[in-house]
Every structure is written in C-alpha cells, then in structure tokens.
C-alpha cells in the first residue's frame, strides 16, 4: 500500500497495464489508427503512440513524429471517454412478440456481465468531462442505466498533458493540464534522464492496484520534474476563453448577428457534437427482424445540428443553421449552468480541431461578447436620460 507519490519506469508501467488486465479490466487507451490518436483496447505499452505527437488547430489535425520516445506526447485524442462510457450506438432493449403482446428485456440480453473498463492515459480535461457526464447521466432523478453500468466499475489512470495543442484551452476553465481529481491513479511522464512516470494515488483502489506493481518512492527531484512538465504545458496553452458572465451574455445574445455570420461557414455536419466529450443528446432507432417478431431499440448519438432534432409535427423549431449553432453554444455555456451548475465545456478543443470549416468556438464567443458590449453601449448612448445606475 502506498499513499504518497511513487515512481514507475517503463517496465513498471507495463506491469501496471498487465495488472489491470489480470483483474479483468478491458483497458482502453490511446493508440494510433487512420492517422490519428484514437481510444481503443490496448494490451501492452507498444500499443501507445510512442514517439508521436500531434498538431491541432482550427479545422486541422496532423500526427507528427516527436524527437523523443514519449508515450503521452500528444494532446486530446479524437475519442474522449464518452466513446467508451456512452457509446455512439448501444442497445436499450430488445422486444419479442408473444401470443398476446410482447416481452421486453433491457439491454442486449447480457446484463449479468457488465463491462469492467479501465481508461488509460485520460487527460485532465476529459476527467472533468466524466464528472459532467456523471451529473447528466447518473446524477439526476432518472439514471441512464447503460452509462451507469459502464461507469460503475470504471478504473481511471489519468495522465498529465505535456504537449497541448493549438486548440486546447483547459487553463481558461480550470480543467487542466494536470489531473487533480476523478482518477484512481495519475501519471506524469518525465522525459530527459530516465524515462519515468510519477504516480499519484487518487483512490483506495488506485493505491491497492499500485501495491501490486514494482514502484519506488518518488524523490523530490522527480516531484519537481513532474511539476515542471505541468507548468510548461500550461504555459504553452495560449488559447483563451473568457467565461466570466458568459451565461448572461449569451442569454441576451439570441438576436446577435454573429450567429448569422457563423451560419455562412457552419455545415451543420455534427462533427463538433460527436467529438465533444460532454454532448449527451441521443435519439433512438428501432430495428425489426424480417418476421417482425423481434424489435431492437438502439440508442444512438444525436445532434442539435440536425433539423430532425427539434422537429414537431414534421417542422423544425430550429430550421436555420444560425439557430442551431446558437442552440449548441448557448446550451453549452448558458443553459448548462442552470441545468447542471457548470458550463458544459472542458476546454479540450476537439470541436475546434474537428470542425471541417475551422470554426473557432473561442473566437466566436469573443465575437458574441464584443457584439453585445457594443450593442449595450449603443443602447445606452441612445437613451442617456435614464438613471445612470440603472443598467437595463
């Protein structure tokens, strides 16, 4: 049992991975596929993108070889934990016709063997995303049973972000780059000298697992090296989002011309909502076999960017793209606060990177704020006779 910080070398980290697997965890970690870092099952350290980093900016993602052998030298992977805990397509229930009606069973009929996932190398922004998904899907009157099942036995190995991308803005939201909570174990990769990993324990389960791994106590030099990794990463995050008063700004900005401007670029392709680690909207799709005897109801990701999303009697409430972009942004940064006591953004930057039109969320929010300030100033100038203390 170890309570403080420990140090693992590469062999120790491999042992940690094996230890998780031997305990029945399906380990999901970063790996390379189709020219990007994705989340998939990993079985050994060689599955990690060793020596690869990424370059991300609005509308662009490229892998790039690094000059070192870093295992975690990349920024936000394509997939967030959402892909594992709240998959894009899952079976809600299956129904079989009977003589007199039907029988219905929850899930895909495999309720006895819930998955035991260990997420490996989770970034701090994504830890916050899990925390927010917990509020949405597992913290209200009605719980999403599938999420609950996947989340219940989750083991989280977090990793400090060492090389953030041009899309990242976690520092504006206080969600990174170093994990502070929501993990069982947190790693900070230290390069230069021995390739090693500082390990922080975040839970008794983490402590217990670590006890089975050849770790050694961390030295003060290791601790300050890890601090330096996090500090350097934070310094490299230049993108900013001012969330102060943003809810009120957006509530007053329904008529802002910025939405129309964005709509000239936005393709309503739904990439942003798919890669977003906290977007939770879903739809259902039923499939029936040829005899009509069995119906399976799938829950699939949906997006507020589709016209069907808000359809009532075949007509969309939000027919225009401007209204749909406004909905997405206003939900995330205003309505979320009312609904879940937090903005729904973690600053991972995925929506910026993966937008094919390169729409820059942080810039657009700054545009809305600036436009509102101008409009308010103009309104004040036009009505100068009012009480100067009355800001309305």
């Amino acid at each position, binding site marked *: 049992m170890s309570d403080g910080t420990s140090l693992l070398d590469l062999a120790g980290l491999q042992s940690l991975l094996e230890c998780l697997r031997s305990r029945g965890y399906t380990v999901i970690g970063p790996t390379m596929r189709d020219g990007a870092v994705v989340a998939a099952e990993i079985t050994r350290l060689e599955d990690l993108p060793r020596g690869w980093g990424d370059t991300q900016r609005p509308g662009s993602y490229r892998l790039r070889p690094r000059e070192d052998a870093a295992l975690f030298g990349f920024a936000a992977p394509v997939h967030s934990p959402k892909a594992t805990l709240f998959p894009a397509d899952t079976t*809600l*229930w299956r*129904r079989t016709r009977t003589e*007199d*009606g*039907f029988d*219905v069973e*929850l899930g895909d009929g495999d309720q006895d063997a819930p998955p035991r996932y260990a997420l490996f190398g989770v970034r701090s922004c994504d830890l916050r995303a899990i925390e927010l998904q917990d509020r*949405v*899907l597992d913290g209200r*009157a*009605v*719980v*999403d*049973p599938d999420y*609950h*099942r996947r*989340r*219940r*036995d*989750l*083991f*989280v190995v977090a990793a400090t972000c060492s090389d953030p991308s041009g899309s990242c803005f976690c520092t504006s939201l206080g969600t990174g780059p170093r994990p502070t909570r929501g993990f*069982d174990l947190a790693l900070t990769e230290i390069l230069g000298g021995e390739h090693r990993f500082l390990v922080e324990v*975040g*839970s*008794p*389960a983490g402590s*217990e697992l670590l006890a089975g791994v050849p770790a050694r106590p961390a030295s003060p030099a290791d601790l300050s090296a890890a601090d330096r990794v996090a500090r350097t990463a934070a310094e490299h995050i230049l993108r900013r989002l001012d969330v102060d008063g943003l809810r009120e700004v957006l*509530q007053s900005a*329904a*008529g802002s011309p910025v939405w129309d401007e964005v709509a000239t670029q936005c393709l309503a392709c739904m990439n942003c909502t798919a890669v977003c680690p906290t977007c939770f*909207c*879903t*739809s*259902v799709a*039923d499939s*029936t076999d040829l005899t*009509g005897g069995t*119906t399976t109801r799938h829950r699939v990701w*949906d997006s*507020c960017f589709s016209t069907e*999303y*808000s*359809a*009532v*009697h*075949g007509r969309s*409430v*939000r*027919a*225009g793209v401007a*209204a749909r972009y406004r*909905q997405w942004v*206003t*939900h995330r940064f*205003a*309505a979320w606060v*009312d*609904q879940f006591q937090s903005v729904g953004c973690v600053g991972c930057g995925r929506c910026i990177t993966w937008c094919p039109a390169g729409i820059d969320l942080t810039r657009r929010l700054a545009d809305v704020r600036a436009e509102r300030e101008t409009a308010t100033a103009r309104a004040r100038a036009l009505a100068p006779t009012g009480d100067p203390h009355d800001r309305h």
Partner: protein
Amino acid sequence: MTATDAFGPAPATVEAGWLLPRPFRVVTRRQDTADTVTLGLRALDGAPLRFAPGAFTMVEMFGVGEVPISISGDPASPELLEHTIRDVGAVTHALVGSEPGTVVGVRGPYGRGWQVRDATGQDLLVVAGGIGLAPLRPALLDVLAHRGDYGRVILLYGARRAEDILFADELARWAARRDIEVQISVDYRTPGWQGRVGLVTALVAQAGFDAERTLTLVCGPEIMMRLVAAALLERGVPAPRVRLSLERNMHCGVGLCGHCQVRELFVCVDGPVLSYDRVDALLSVPEL
C-alpha cells in the same frame, strides 16, 4: 473500491421503469373529428397507469415509431388510459387507424402536469384551442369530481370550425351544468353553426372573472397560447398564475435525450406545463 464508489447499483425500478414500453391493448376507439380519434387502452397486465392531469406518455406503434401524446382520460379511472390523437404524421396516422384489439407500447407517464389543485378555494379559468382541449380534460374532470373545492370554473374553447370541436357531447353536457361555464367560439362559420365566430382570445377579453383569484390553464397552438397569455396579463392575471403546456420534440420523456430543450428547460421534465413567467421571454425568440 474505486474512485467511482458513489455509484451503487442502479435501482431496479429506475432501470425498468422509464424506458421500457408496456403492452397495452386498444379497447375503445372513438372518432372525435375528421382527423382526430380517442383511443382507450388497457394494460395487458391490468396494472393501471396512474397519472397527474397534464402528463403525457410515449405511445408506440410497432415498426412505425413512438410519439409523445397527452393523456386525455379521467385520472379517477387510471385502468383505462385514454389518448386523443390527431392524424399528423406517420405514427399518429397508424395509431388513429388502429382497431380495437391492436397492441401498442406505452411508456410513462411523464412530465409535470397542471397542478390544478393549486386553485383550491379559488376560481379556475381554462382556455383551450383545438386539440389543446385533450390535455386539459383530465384537469377539468378532476375539478368537477371535487367541485366543492373551487369557486367559479370557466372553460373557453376555440376550434377552427364547428366540425373540429372536440368532445362535443361532453362539452354540451358541461354547458348544461350550472357549476361550469362553457363558452365556445369558432374561427370560421360553417352551415348550421349558431354560436360565436372569432378567436378564443376575444372570449378572454369578454369573460368576466376575477383576475386576482383565478388560476388560468391554457393549451393550444403555441401562438394561440401566447396571445391568450398576453390577454390574461392584460386582464391583470399575474404571469405565474398563467400556465401553458408546451409542445416540443419529446423523445425519452425523462430529460436525458435533449431533444425537447428550450434553452435551460427540459420540457419533458420541467414541463410540459410551465408558468408563463418562465417561458414568456423564451417563446418570443424565433427558433429558440
């Protein structure tokens, strides 16, 4: 033990309750108007579906799909689930065409209802437009069943034409009672109609009621509800005492799927019945 220790096993009731349809059989079918039918449904397992007036269920026609429909039946008789359905889309078309004996799936009930008992000791004004009378019927039946608890009860109903008047027989019975005042207006005169012609908002302006002691319930097309709400406010009814039932794209019924959101509101759980002070600013923005 893991970092996720707060997560006990999901209560079985939660898992089974909200998303699983129960089989119901169509036992009665009444053609109300040319495009509207009221189905009476009974659960195959006989368990009554208890509901609060204003609540809705998700009704599913196998192989076609699922739609949110307000309950129009009597809350005192939950063993018969009544839905009044207008033929407007693929699913409602299939439902409207279903004969007694058909088995459909039902989830629910969902949503916050009218909470009409808040008007205990006071007057009640109900304003309905078109099929908007259907979700109000359970509230009216509940009030009439406890008639002594209320002061005046007024129903103002607007329909497009005389042929579109819903529950016409029942309205006639109510109109004959002394303890409920019923006023009906149609938008367009058709042969045989002797009554009022005009918008339901005009009835509001003419209705004599004490704005200070009246709870008002409004249901109909969104634009009609907004106009009625404005007329009620004009008459001095405070906005929190004006309740509307919003219609949005309810899918899951429990606030998880996101479709029915109006800014911060999940209409399926925060509503569908909402007071006007909460929705006034939201409804006046196009495409919100």
